[in-house]
């Protein structure tokens, strides 16, 4: 694979998790420096650098097994890197949306109870968070009865209720149909604008997230390329990883729609075409 060589740095001797000093750069929430992670002899991440600031959306893309989920788990402190440093802003509050939530059938629990778990949430805030993600009607539903897309929205509401400085979203559009995905990414952008939080998300598809991201990191165990989504989409390293599927996705996007779908799948006519 023709990927640019990565800087080989030895951060072994340094403490792996430090606090960012506010003086360094006040708006930086998270700074990953030279992260390496391995399970036994199998290397999963090598020399990964990543920085995310307040109000910035960073998307990690890469094929299956590229180490995307591992990377965000290292970023959140769920996994200890073998090498490198994870620097966090002091008192960083993270809202995490995991890839999936498996709820035992034997556990009777409603959406509202799940959102309130382990914290005090006022009725107004709960209603607002559910409305924000278009899940008002799900409030009293059993958590197990939700469809994949509904569960994603509830998980996003759960993350929002943390009033996070940083939103970490692992494949947020999973189980959501393609039109709903575009809607979801627009929502994530709006949330960023309103709350001025940083967003770190994982996706396996560049074109879906392109409009909603400031920085793309193309990961395949190491950072193959990174930068503005436009730039990355033309990068040889990116094309080598995604070439074929990319062409197919572009074909999908040229398909003409007279309407788009809301988060719940409802039809929303285009204002432009209806005028």
């Amino acid at each position, binding site marked *: 694979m023709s990927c640019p060589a990565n800087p080989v740095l030895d951060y072994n001797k340094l403490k792996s998790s430090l606090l960012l000093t506010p003086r360094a750069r006040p708006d930086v929430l998270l700074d990953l420096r030279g992260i390496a992670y391995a399970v036994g002899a199998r290397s999963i991440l090598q020399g990964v650098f990543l920085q995310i600031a307040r109000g910035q959306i960073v998307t990690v893309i890469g094929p299956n097994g590229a180490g995307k989920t591992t990377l965000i788990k290292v970023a*959140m402190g*769920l996994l200890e890197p073998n090498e490198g440093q994870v620097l966090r802003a002091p008192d960083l509050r993270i809202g995490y949306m995991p890839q999936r939530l498996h709820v035992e059938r034997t556990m*009777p*629990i*409603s959406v509202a*109870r*799940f959102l309130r778990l*382990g914290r005090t949430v006022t009725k107004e805030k709960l209603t607002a968070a559910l409305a924000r993600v278009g899940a008002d009607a799900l409030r009293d539903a059993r958590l197990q009865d939700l469809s994949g897309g509904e569960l994603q929205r509830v998980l996003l509401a759960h993350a929002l209720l943390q009033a996070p400085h940083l939103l970490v979203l692992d494949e947020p559009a999973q189980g959501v149909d393609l039109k709903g995905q575009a809607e979801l990414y627009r929502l994530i952008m709006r949330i960023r604008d309103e709350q001025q939080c940083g967003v770190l998300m994982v996706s396996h598809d560049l074109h879906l997230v392109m409009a909603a991201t400031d920085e793309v990191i193309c990961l395949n165990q190491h950072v193959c390329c990174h930068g503005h989504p436009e730039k990355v989409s033309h990068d040889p390293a990116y094309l080598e990883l995604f070439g074929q599927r990319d062409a197919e996705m572009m074909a999908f996007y040229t398909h003409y729609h007279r309407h788009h779908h809301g988060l719940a799948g409802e039809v929303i006519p285009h204002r432009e075409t209806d005028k």
Partner: protein
Amino acid sequence: MDDFVIRALAAGILVALVAGPLGCFIVWRRMAYFGDTLAHSALLGIAFGLLLDINMQLAVVFACCALAVLLVLMERNKSLASDTLLGILAHSSLALGLVMLSFTPVQVDLLSYLFGDLLTVSTRELWWIGGGALLAMVALYMTWNRLLAITLHEELARVEGLDVARLRLLLMLVMAVVVAVSMKIVGVLLITSLMIIPPATARHFARSPEQMAVGASLAGMLAVCGGVAVSWIWDTPTGPSIVVSAALLFVISALLKARS
């Protein structure tokens, strides 16, 4: 009613009270096999207690807690905590306990340890059971929401600042204490059933985790009363009678649920 029946009922109800909420977590977290493993180690505690001539209840509590810590350490190393290894641990500790009991200076009534001997509960033992149940109840009450959070999604809970490892250890130790004090009620071989059947019964009607916990306690207490009554009237073994009543309640609840 005689004193010993009142003591038996009190002991059984105390254990059922705490086994309800605890059992919910065992069901939700699929820890039934851990319960069996802990229960089997209780017999090892009895053997040690007799051989070293120390307080029996203390020896059992200690043995269960020691194994609980061992299991938590094993669980951390995920590749080890397989059903197979738990099975090896459970049955070898049961077997080792039985072998060791044959070396004890006094003859022991093995059946009473294996299947419980509720009607012979002494006042002293009742204090132990009450103390253990109260301790477990307070621990569960104080950590209830946090335990629910780690049961739903451990990593989510960790990101939100919960100390998952400590909570898991706590749950395991609570389970060890409850197992240790309930040995007298239904015996080593049937303890897990007292923690699993009542929650499974309550689940049919519960709409929240709390309802399921309370329902499980009620179902457990009802099973204890039924078992003691049956044992009193027809002179059947008390422990197994309690488990049979619990199972009957489960079947009835399943039928009621199916009809509605």
